């Protein structure tokens, strides 16, 4: 079977599910952000694959480019939050940051 749209969509779905799994299981805040990157990459693969096999234009490419831009902004702010958390709590473990629960 020659490689077509479903193959690329499957890779995207795998990346997305792996990212979701990482976000649900990981306790290190930096690893959570890595999970977000996996999710965004999975979505991007889908955008580009559909742009090639269904749409034919470059709109999907543009959407993927904007996702990359927003991922950069998200990484900057997210990692700043992680570092501020590390300074205030002395750990990057998201379960340890529970001041509002107590």
């Amino acid at each position, binding site marked *: 079977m020659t490689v077509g749209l479903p193959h690329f*969509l499957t890779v995207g779905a795998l990346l997305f*599910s792996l990212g979701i799994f990482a976000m649900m*299981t990981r306790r290190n805040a930096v690893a959570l952000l890595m999970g977000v990157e996996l999710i965004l990459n999975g979505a991007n693969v889908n955008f580009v694959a559909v742009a090639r096999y*269904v749409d034919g234009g470059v709109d999907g490419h543009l959407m993927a480019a904007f996702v990359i*831009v927003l991922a950069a902004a998200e990484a900057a702010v997210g990692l700043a939050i992680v570092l501020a958390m590390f300074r205030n709590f002395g750990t990057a473990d998201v379960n340890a940051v529970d001041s509002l629960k107590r």
Partner: protein
Amino acid sequence: MSGDLVFYGFAALTVLSGFVVVFARNIVHAGFALLFTLLGVAGLYALLGADFLAVTQTVVYIGGILVLVLFAVMMTRIPRKEQRRRGLDHMVPAGIFSLGLFALLYKVSAGSFPVREPGEAVPTVKAIGVEIMTDWIFPFEFASLVLLVAMVGAAILIRERRPARAPEALPENAPGETAEAPEEVHA
């Protein structure tokens, strides 16, 4: 046929290193596995004829975001003896949920899309530039605003807070230390 082999190579690189990102106990290993995942995705973009995106992925993701992530890994290290506890929580429900999610997505992606035969891949840079400056001008400008706000916000979040009320609370130099260094420079 050789194109198929290239696809399977990049897909395997992407997915296998994705598994390492998720399951590696050492966060540094996860960070480096993320490098290979992003490289594999860039290869998939190139296979899909998205030359601009493949380069952007390499430059922005690997050159920018990944370096940022590795810096954060470096700055939030905890001593090894506290690290020995299991790095993963809620394995079973999370596994069931993500497997179900993957099954759903797989089912959908195997469905009937109105697939057309993709022609020869052409360079997309010019088309992307024209589209950005015409139809996508508002998202483009808005993205620049988002980046500016994110930059300022990150700088504010990470700033050292000075104790505003007490200038005398600043650490005084010990008497022995002040006499040495500055005079040497003038002489």
